[in-house]
């Protein structure tokens, strides 16, 4: 069965880049523009991995991770946070909130695929 990846990011170009990279490799990629939409999508269909930006309007990445981890339905779904070099401290906060791993922007296809493979096997 194909695995589904939810890309939560307020930047359409990042969502597109994740789609263009992972869809040819046999993943299904769905997108959400912020944390609120992301949680809604998570509740409506099975998702195997979430790639989530830190800074987003309405509900930011860390809040979304907290909400996800508080909901037992989403137990065990890995979350990859997208960060920049300058956001190290935020990253530790996200990790404590329950994020699984991280990817530093700007990243290329190879790094994204490596992190997804590391977490999904």
């Amino acid at each position: 069965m194909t695995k589904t990846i939810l890309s939560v990011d307020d930047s359409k170009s990042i969502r597109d880049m994740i789609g263009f990279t992972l869809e040819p490799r046999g993943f299904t990629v769905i997108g959400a523009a912020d944390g609120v939409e992301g949680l809604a999508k998570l509740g409506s269909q099975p998702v195997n991995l979430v790639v989530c930006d830190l800074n987003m309007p309405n509900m930011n990445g860390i809040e979304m991770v907290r909400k996800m981890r508080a909901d037992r339905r989403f137990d065990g779904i890995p979350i990859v946070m997208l960060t920049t070099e300058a956001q190290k401290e935020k990253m530790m906060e996200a990790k404590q909130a329950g994020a699984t791993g991280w990817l530093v922007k700007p990243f290329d296809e190879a790094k994204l695929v490596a992190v997804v493979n590391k977490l999904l096997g």
Partner: protein
Amino acid sequence: MNPATQSFIQEASEILEGLDVTLLELEASPTDSARIDAVFRALHTLKGSGAMFGFTALSKFLHHFENAFDRIRSGEGTVSADLIQLSLASRDHMERMIARGPDPEAGRPPDAETDALVEKIRRLVETMQPGSAPASDGTPTMRRFVIDFRPSPDAMRNGLRPDLLLAELADLGTADITCLGHHVPALEDLDPTVCHLAWHVVLVTGAGRGEIEEVFLFASDGDLEITELGPVGEPASAPGSASEETPAAPEAAQAAEQVPSKSTSVRVQSHRLDELMDQLGELVIAQARLNRISSDVQDSALAGVAEEIERLVTGLRDATLSIRMLPVELVFGKFRRVVRDLSGELGKQVKLDTRGGETEVDKNVIDSLTEPLVHIIRNAIDHGIESPQERAARGKPEHALVKMQARQSGGEVLISVTDDGAGLDAEAIRARAIERGLLAADQEASDEQLYNLIFEPGFSTAKSLSSVSGRGVGMDAVRRVIEDLRGVVEVKSRPGLGTQVTLRLPLTLAIIDGLLVKVAGVPFVLPLSSVEECVDLPADEKARESGRALLRIRDELVPYVNLDTLFGFDRLDEDDRRIVVSSVDGKRMGLVVDEVVGQHQTVIKPLSIYHRGIEGLSGSTILGDGSVAMILDVTALVKRAQAARRVAA
């Protein structure tokens, strides 16, 4: 001098450097057959090529030296402290023999020093006692690690799969994995989403500690202990691993034999690498021009080629930069000898522990690192570490420990030197600083501010001048070298517990990813590594000329500065100004610009003499249209803006 001789001298000095390290390692474990072999091979190579390039006297001398190690290799002698001492002296003597160049045609008259050393070696060989025959050929590249891993209880809920980690670990070599289940509670108390298991792994691998840590990158919140048991072939020192090692060892030995044939290397003179880098820099600039023309012309065929070339240039850049990367171990290796000699000279007992030597940095950074690190280490041993008597009186272990650690963190490499000595004396520093006029007598200063004064020119608190340090030229020179490399020096200290000096260095010096912006029509480049995001400057903020410059970005207040005001430019009548949010030491700060042009591969060129002293500029670069843009030093800008605000307040 002909090029072949030059090449020999270069090779010889590399061999001698390696020999230094190997001899000291051999001193620590005298029965290590792999290291005995390594010494023998080094001497043998030098003897052969020395004779070929006209270093006849050297070759003759080496014959005796090699003889001694041949005896040990065949089990007719053992490594003794005398032998190590003599070998180190011989090594230094060979360095001098090589430095004086090839022998003249007529041969070189015998010199007293060579003869004396030969005589000593001969006597030592005569008195050699047959020792136990060393074990069969060691395989220095294969090492055994014991890894104890207990994920945090939340790990599985948070999406971490221990099975994938263990599989990744097993891919590194031969892994013997034991699952420890004694923390699993009784069935009625069991929460199936909580991770109760732990694993004990014995891994035989050619990979280093860094690669193993990489596997556990996302599992750092669990308990993880990685213990290196040394090369395979030595008796394992940890209990419990003895039974597992027997089946693993022969396979490992085979694997190790295959390793060298796979990776071959080519020796290249370093100036050729510099040339390659220069050419690449020009190529990047030419490619930016092509991009610009292509976007002006709006021809789809040209745009396709331009994009393809951009992709190739980026690939070429990454490949070239990786050629220039060298392991920090090259620098660390030299310090075993430095620490040994220094501690002997100063009557202190010091152990050196190095970690993360496999961390790679740009060749030019490596070349410049030795001198500052020597200063830091000298200071640590001379001023930081107490005499053995003092240490005993304070209940510290007799042997002081100096740790050198390197690790990569994002776009930076952190190199730290930590000692467990007396720590910095804040009061002595204050007194000295006042005496030197660096601090007003009534000025308040935190300990941290005082510690940083040791980097000021002309500062030295040494009670007496020693040959080692204390002329007060040390630490300010360190800071100058590191700042020239676009790095930062930090010092931390705790009284009675020790001092840590950390060097933060950029990974590369030549080309960075930058963000091209315009301020009052003038182009500037911000290093992308310090940029967090770009947002629009809201309309109501534009009118405001002064007052509190704070902007609410997603419920967070971020202070900002107008770069045009800061640089004294006239304000342009732009209606879509942008804020580039950067982060320095975890604090966010907005820089207002007129236009964000986009990402730009930035070839760093030095600043002219006129610009060099200007705070806030770290370099310059050439854009696609041939114009020059300044590279902004975000850290300095933010500090300057903060200082300006304090003055205004």
